[in-house]
């Protein structure tokens, strides 16, 4: 069996293993083992990718495999990765691994919980390795559906409402997306001949511009909903606030990245002419997301809401950079996806841990946690510093790449919008330091909190793995940046052929 399919098989086997478990403990152990293997497998995939490149394989995708599974519509199980999908796979591997440890204390229906969680991850892995749009869409849905159950059953607060809202909005996005994908499919061979779902094959032809004008917005918005594109982002605060810890981690950490990845891999890559024409509309929307999300976060009181709005801002930056259509900015977009994935997962993990102890997420009800749980608090500060773009942590690298890249754009419009987006670094500092000041520093507000304990081993494992990843990228970004930009080259070639300057 090829190594990419293994990425789907391992989680499925883990799910089957969980079915045979008898109690909570067994479920946890099986999940942990399964996801550890999955993490190792992700690392192996990345290493093998490097080895393949080193061996001189310069094709756009490596490890490609194709099997027909629905021949009358020419739908294939076509897989393959380039540097971008490789690093996204690694990101997913890390986050599902830490997510399992962050859910160590789930007691109710733990079997069902872990099954849904791991199924979700399966969908994500499948999405990143797919080259066939239909298969990709299928995996996308596999990833979105379990979310409904996870939030609706194991969530907190108005969980049914939030779960319903999140699912319906994402499904609305999917509906647009499906139309968009069908549109691409039916225009995939304008010269006549067999239609195809394969991204690489479609990329070789030029989809008629009229079709592009129609289907680009559909596809972009369809994926954009998942990437928290303004004004389709309101599922995010409610959904994140109600979701259990690991689900928030996976959702903000990985699932929102499917949106950005899809926008760039399908909408931009396949329809660059339309992207070039209509990009300005979406640039305005995404720049709004960036600033608006940040301002929205400044006055929130609930930790998860703060983080959800912050995600709107940071994910807005991803889509913003993708639309800039140059190599540096797109490189930054991918790095921002990874960086945001890691740091928001860390945030949600820590928020879950704090909530598990204090049973409140309202910052004004807490205070002085630094004294009570120094380990968790220091981790929170590190996450905050990563979020506000401190050099040495991943956020800085990604944001600076985006800003420098966008500012190199020849158009004055793009440069001015970049300056507006830049201003988010100040607002981010405001809301991060506000939370740190109220929540962690200052005197202890509630004496009952003095009894609380600091992190346990599984919590330490979760946070330390994530922090190492964040610092690793922040300290030595060159390998990541170069991997991504090498793989971007063919995509940029195609896109820039469309630019008429």
């Amino acid at each position: 069996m090829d190594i990419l399919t293994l990425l789907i098989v391992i989680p499925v086997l883990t799910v089957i293993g969980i079915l045979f478990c008898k109690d909570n403990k067994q479920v946890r152990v099986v999940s942990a083992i399964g996801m550890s293997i999955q993490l190792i497998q992700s690392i192996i995939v990345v290493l093998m990718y490097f080895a393949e490149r080193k061996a001189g394989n310069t094709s756009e995708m490596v490890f490609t495999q194709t099997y027909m599974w629905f021949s009358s519509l020419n739908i294939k199980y076509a897989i393959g990765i380039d540097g971008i999908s490789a690093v996204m796979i690694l990101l997913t591997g890390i986050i599902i691994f830490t997510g399992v440890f962050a859910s160590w204390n789930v007691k109710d229906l733990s079997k069902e919980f872990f099954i849904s969680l791991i199924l979700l991850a399966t969908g994500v892995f499948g999405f990143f390795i797919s080259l066939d749009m239909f298969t990709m869409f299928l995996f996308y849905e596999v990833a979105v559906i379990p979310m409904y159950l996870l939030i609706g059953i194991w969530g907190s607060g108005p969980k049914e409402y939030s779960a319903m809202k999140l699912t319906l909005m994402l499904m609305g996005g999917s509906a647009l997306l499906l139309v968009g994908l069908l549109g691409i499919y039916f225009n995939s061979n304008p010269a006549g001949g067999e239609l195809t779902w394969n991204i690489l094959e479609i990329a070789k032809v030029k989809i008629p511009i009229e079709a592009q004008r129609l289907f680009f917005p559909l596809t972009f918005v369809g994926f954009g909903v998942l990437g928290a594109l303004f004004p389709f982002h309101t599922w995010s605060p409610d959904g994140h606030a109600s979701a259990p810890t690991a689900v928030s981690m996976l959702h903000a950490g990985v699932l929102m990245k499917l949106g950005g990845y899809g926008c760039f891999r399908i909408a931009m890559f396949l329809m660059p002419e339309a992207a070039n024409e209509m990009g300005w509309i979406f640039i305005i929307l995404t720049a709004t997301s960036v600033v608006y999300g940040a301002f929205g976060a400044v006055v929130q009181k609930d930790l998860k809401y703060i983080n959800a709005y912050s995600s709107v801002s940071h994910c807005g930056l991803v889509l913003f950079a993708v639309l800039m259509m140059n190599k540096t900015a797109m490189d930054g977009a991918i790095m921002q996806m990874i960086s945001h994935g890691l740091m928001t997962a860390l945030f949600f993990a820590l928020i879950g841990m704090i909530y598990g102890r204090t049973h409140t997420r309202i910052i004004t009800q807490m205070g002085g946690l630094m004294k009570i749980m120094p380990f968790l608090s220091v981790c929170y500060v590190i996450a905050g510093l990563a979020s506000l773009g401190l050099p040495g942590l991943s956020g800085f690298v990604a944001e600076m790449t985006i800003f420098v890249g966008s500012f190199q754009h020849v158009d004055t419009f793009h440069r001015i919008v970049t300056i507006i987006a830049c201003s988010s670094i100040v607002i981010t500092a405001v809301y991060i330091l506000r939370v740190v000041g109220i929540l962690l520093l200052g005197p202890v507000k509630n004496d009952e909190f003095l009894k609380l304990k600091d992190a346990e081993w599984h919590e330490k494992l979760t946070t330390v793995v994530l922090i190492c990843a964040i610092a690793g990228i922040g300290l030595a970004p060159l390998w990541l940046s170069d991997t991504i930009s090498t793989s971007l080259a063919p995509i940029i070639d195609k896109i820039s052929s469309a630019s008429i300057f």
Partner: protein
Amino acid sequence: MIDFGYTIWIPLIPILMFLFIGLTGHKYKPVISGYLGTLGLLTSAALSYYTAYQYFFNVGKVAGVYEKIIGFNVTWLRFTDTLHIDLGTLLDPISVMMLVVITTISLMVHIYSLGYMKGEKGFARFYAVLSLFSFSMLGLVLATNIFQMYIFWELVGVSSYLLISFYYEKPSAVAAGKKAFIVTRFADLGFLIGILMLSFITGTFDFKTLTDPNGAAIMQGGSAAFLGLSVMTWALLLIFIGGAGKSAMFPLHIWLPDAMEGPTPVSALIHAATMVVAGVYLVARLFTIFALSAPVALEIVGYVGGITSLFAAVIACTQNDIKRVLAFSTMSQIGYMMLALGVSGYGGEEGLGYMASMFHLFTHAMFKALLFLGAGAIIHAVHSNNMTDMGGLRKYLPWTNITFLIACLTIAGVPPLSGFWSKDEILVAAFEHNKFLFAIEFLVAGLTAFYMFRLYFNVFWGKDRHYHHAPHEAPPVMLFPLVFLAIASIFSGFIPFTSLVTSDGEAFHVGTEWIVAIPSVLIGLIGIAIAWIFYKKETAIPDKLASSFKLLYKGSLNKFYIDEIYLFVTKKIIFALISKPIAWFDRHVIDGFMNSIAFVTNFASEKIKGMQSGQLQQYAYVFVSGVVILAFVFIYLLKF
């Protein structure tokens, strides 16, 4: 030719210490982390001195000009083929000079803190962050390109934040840290946009290329214009905003007085000698471009410096918190340095202001650190920051008294102490280029002498206060840095800066301008004399003066209400007029729209769901009525 590759270890050693102490500090006795940090810095200092010796006296000078030498360079992040962030070490007169300043002051502060911070909770944390700061500051001055400088710029910002809010259980310390970070961050936004613009115009981040007087970057200056100024001028002004934020220039200064909430040694190191001069260093680093392709920007730098130095000096005259007086004094002195850069030209004797600025930066670091450490010793003895709790301390703190007096005389510009020499050069440069700025500086020189001696007489002379227990002199570990810095303050004026640190690397000669030197010494002495009359013994004169100049006095005491203006902007405008409405808009309008879609769908389906009742009678009824109606329609209306 020696290989300067080892210079990378000068910043690396402190960061390793930070990691080591940070990760293992809780496992052993706190004092060990203090020794470790000090030892690390001692190594860095030794390397810096060695480098300075080698650079200035052995290899730096090629054909009479000090060259820029790249000691170490490695690509850290690549944006495009021409734009990439490198990390490395750039050696030239100013960076080598800064190495000496930073490691010296930092080492003294490390030693001093062994005594000052003894027994404090978080001793290990203190030393860890102090090492982090030293690393960031050293990395900043050694930067080979402007983006590396920005990276370390942010890192010094965060270490400053961590040290200001060191006593994190105290709400005022937390607020001060937050304020410092956010204000400087706001300024850094300007810096960042400036970098983006500069790199867009010139296509490089590299300092060596940027500041080459014959290079392409300088030539780009006159290109496109925007609002009457060239794009280059705008870019440099934006970069200067970053520098003004860090260097607490008016009106971005509001964080500095509050930053005194941090432990006193921190104030000495970060908020007096090193970090706050980063803005001056930044302008000096880009001085060639400023002078050759954006003279307007340079002029603005000079005026900002002049205004700040006067503004801060006036406020310093009325403050009662000993550390705040010093903080405003720092602002004022940094204003001097900025002004000196602003009145300087490029090359030869034209570059007098540049040299004077760097000279003053050096001497100021020594005597201001001494003042702060002395203030620390006083606070250590009487457990208060407030001048009204002090008096007659000369009997109890003899060593502190002498060293503090030396520092006060130095800052007042009394010859032959170092402050006289450096301040004199600035005044000469101002005198030659801009009489208005000269007049301001001349006034400030008098004010400086006055407020420093107001402080001195109030604390060491005057009436004895009722102390809970007799104030005791600081331990030797704290006195050693005081004595060391006092010696440095006395003698550092004799360093021949004209031949070491100049704008174009070439030595030039300048004689003493008596026409400037004599009046400036005199006005300093007058300031001291007035302070003597007012404060040596308690008199009623200051109160009378205060009541006759009530408006000025109140304005000065309240720091001219700049803080209140900021508070208004942040609380009333950003929070209440932007963020709150956005949050409301998001929850009610956008989300409300999404919810209403759901509601409409729900409502509609609720209304029509009766049709799917599953009751056969109802279906039959509807079916039969339908047939009847259709038959009616077909037969009578359509007339089939």
